[in-house]
């Protein structure tokens, strides 16, 4: 028998060996914690609905850092900074807003809110915005900020002091006009009758040694007017029309003036006697969006605008006259101060939004950024402008700011027009498809992928907008490259073999990476506290990373 061959010694060793094998199996089985280096990742793509604003100085200067941004209106409670904070940041004038994930728009509810921008020394802005269901807007709306006392290529300014008599009344007729400049040849003239007294917003009589009067006249014929206009669009949702009802309307401005006055540093809102205002009309202005130039006798509307409420209000209708300077003008009187717009106003109460689908199969999974300009049919007047629109193949964009008359559109990549056409009836809501043709020269499909490692493990990078420019160009040339999603962006805008400067905004943080060469179509990199932290400013990057890692 085989077991007879086993003596006592062998038997003991055999038992020990078998026991050892089993103990080994027991001890080493499952010695690894199943959760070892498994880090629970929370999806950082919390905000899916976003909207952007790009503030720029009208003179091309750098905006100060103390930009105050607040959100008001019906759905203000649902709006956050894209970084998730209730405080809205505007680093370098870039405002990125997001919608709380539990309060996103639905088919029956479009979110409406106003963004109030205050910068000391600049005109206050009140920008009405809407976000509709499935409108994961990647549009960046351009807003041009104008200094109140400094002329720009699009504005002329006059500031003048008038002595006041007893009781704070003017002693003589006090007249002043904005200058006629190369950029703004038209003027606005104001005449205050003698004996006029001034009151503030509360109706309190203002007394003081002098009245400081100021007027800013805008060039209504300049394409930049769209971003200078109150709200940043010629289309406005909150307009009290001639019939007294409130609704959406489209402005076709022939003249636009902002008049302010102060007594003893307090802003004047009302007068004891109406003052006379005469706004010269843009000579290129055409009626009804057609090719018919305005002429003397044509009746234009006068509307006022209150920045605090974002509301336009019908004031009067006036036939155009030829003034003493031989130019067409709209004279009217007013007993309050505000912004005044003269021109034509078209109700959009019955209008439906035109949704445009962009077809570009050549993009694959990549994105591109285009500008979209809406013009009158004859192409002479800009009616709406989107500076940066991120497009994928099949992206749907709502053309919300169209007038109720026929228009043309031009889609540009950089300065090159890549698609154009007409929209015959922008008010009927008929969907439109715009095909972006294959590029004449093949584009590079470049992927930038950023993996971020925290001590707790790899994290998912929240969405952020990435800007780029050619190396050596000024900062004003930064343009939108696209939105980085899950740390990745696929774009057609970069060329392999070329270096770029990149800039990202997150909350109040600005991160710039200069002179970064695109060496391959797949630019993937991993950064970590103990890994690669960049070559330009690793310590700063490390501090950013540590801060970011605290949040997970």
């Amino acid at each position, binding site marked *: *028998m085989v*077991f*007879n061959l*086993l003596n*006592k010694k062998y*038997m*003991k060793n*055999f*038992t020990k060996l*078998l*026991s050892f*094998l*089993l103990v080994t*199996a*027991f001890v*080493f*089985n*499952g*010695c*690894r*914690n*199943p*959760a*070892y*280096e*498994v*880090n*629970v*990742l*929370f*999806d*950082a793509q*919390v*905000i899916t609905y976003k909207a952007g604003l790009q503030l720029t100085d009208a003179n091309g200067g750098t905006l100060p850092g103390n930009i105050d941004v607040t959100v008001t209106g019906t759905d203000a409670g649902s709006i*956050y*900074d894209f*970084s*998730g*904070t*209730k405080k809205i940041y505007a680093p370098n004038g870039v405002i990125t807003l997001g919608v*709380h*994930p*539990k309060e996103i728009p639905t088919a029956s509810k479009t979110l409406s809110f106003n963004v109030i921008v205050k910068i000391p020394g600049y005109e206050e802005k009140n920008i009405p915005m809407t976000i509709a269901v499935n409108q994961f807007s990647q549009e960046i709306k351009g807003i041009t900020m104008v200094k109140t006392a400094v002329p720009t290529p699009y504005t002329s300014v006059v500031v003048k002091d008038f002595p006041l008599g007893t009781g704070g009344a003017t002693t003589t007729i006090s007249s002043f006009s904005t200058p006629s400049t190369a950029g703004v040849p038209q003027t606005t003239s104001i005449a205050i009758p003698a004996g006029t007294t001034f009151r503030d917003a509360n109706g309190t009589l203002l007394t003081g040694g002098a009245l400081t009067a100021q007027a800013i006249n805008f060039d209504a014929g300049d394409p930049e007017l769209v971003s200078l206009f109150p709200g940043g669009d010629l289309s406005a949702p909150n307009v009290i029309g001639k019939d007294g009802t409130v609704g959406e309307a489209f402005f076709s401005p022939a003249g636009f003036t902002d008049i302010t006055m102060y007594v003893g540093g307090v802003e004047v809102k009302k007068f004891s006697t109406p003052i006379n205002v005469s706004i010269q009309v843009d000579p290129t202005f055409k009626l009804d969006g057609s090719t018919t130039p305005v002429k003397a006798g044509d009746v234009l509307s006068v509307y006022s605008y209150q920045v605090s409420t974002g509301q336009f209000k019908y004031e009067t209708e006036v036939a155009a006259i030829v003034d003493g300077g031989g130019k067409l003008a709209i004279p009217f009187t007013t007993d309050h101060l505000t912004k005044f717009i003269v021109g034509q106003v078209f109700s959009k109460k019955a209008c439906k939004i035109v949704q445009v689908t962009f077809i570009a199969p050549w993009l694959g999974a990549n994105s591109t950024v285009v500008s979209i300009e809406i013009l009158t049919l004859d192409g002479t007047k800009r009616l709406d402008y989107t500076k940066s629109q991120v497009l994928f193949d099949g992206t749907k964009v709502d053309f919300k700011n169209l007038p109720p008359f026929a228009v043309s559109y031009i889609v540009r990549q950089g300065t090159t027009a890549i698609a154009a056409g007409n929209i015959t009836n922008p008010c009927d809501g008929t969907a439109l498809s715009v095909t972006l043709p294959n590029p004449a020269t093949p584009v590079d499909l470049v992927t930038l992928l950023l993996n971020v490692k925290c001590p*707790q493990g*790899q994290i*998912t990078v*929240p969405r952020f907008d990435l800007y780029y420019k050619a190396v050596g160009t000024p900062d004003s040339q930064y343009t939108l490259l696209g939105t980085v999603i*899950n740390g990745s962006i696929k774009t057609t805008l970069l060329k392999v073999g070329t270096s770029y400067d990149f800039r990202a905004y997150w*909350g109040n943080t600005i991160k710039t990476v200069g002179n970064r060469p695109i060496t391959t179509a797949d630019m993937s990199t991993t950064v970590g506290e103990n890994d690669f932290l960049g070559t330009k400013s690793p310590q700063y990057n490390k501090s950013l990373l540590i801060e970011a890692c605290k*949040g*997970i």
Partner: protein
Amino acid sequence: MKRTTTILSLCLFLAFFTQVNAQINPKTDSTNRRKVTLSMTIATQGAGLDLKYAPTPEFAIRGGASILPISGGGVYKVRSEPTDVDFDVNFANAHLMFDWHPFLQETSLSRKVVVTAGAGYFWEAKGDVVVSYRGTYKYGDILIPSSDLGQLYGNVEWNKVAPYLGFGFENVFPSKRFNVGFAVGTYYLGAPDATLTGTNYLIQNTSNQQQLQKNMSYYRFMPVIQVNLNFGL
């Protein structure tokens, strides 16, 4: 944990009992040996039934089945926040084993040693876990409650066929029809397939699946500590 402690205590007690039994019945008595035995098994791989046929005192062939359905849960800390972990483990197998008593000539406890080799077919060899984060996720000023965060679903599934090796203590010549045996061994299940998926705000955790798979690859053995309640037929 309490359940495991109880089972281990029982095992130790029975092992001690078996040893005592061995000391008071040192002699071989072939007339008491029964060739066919029905065993109820209580073990770490579950409870079951075995039918053993021993044509000779040294060798036996044994077939049977066992099942182990376990459900449970607990609260753990993830990111300093309590996290609910619910698991559901199911093992069920049919097995065929060969027993060998190599030391029957001995007079000590070693004469009761039985070496077992065989294999099991697991028609169930898997575990599911659902992880629910109780805390609130903060994204800036946006607070996302646990009810909206979603859940993590983990699944681990082993091979269906697994070899077995082990040893134990059995009285080949019991004086009564009923006796107790004890076995220790292990199935080799191989590295399991592990999946990890998340919902809502935990959807990014699919990227952790590879790490989980790696971690679970250490769990190739299924340890067996078994008590046999034998009834000679």
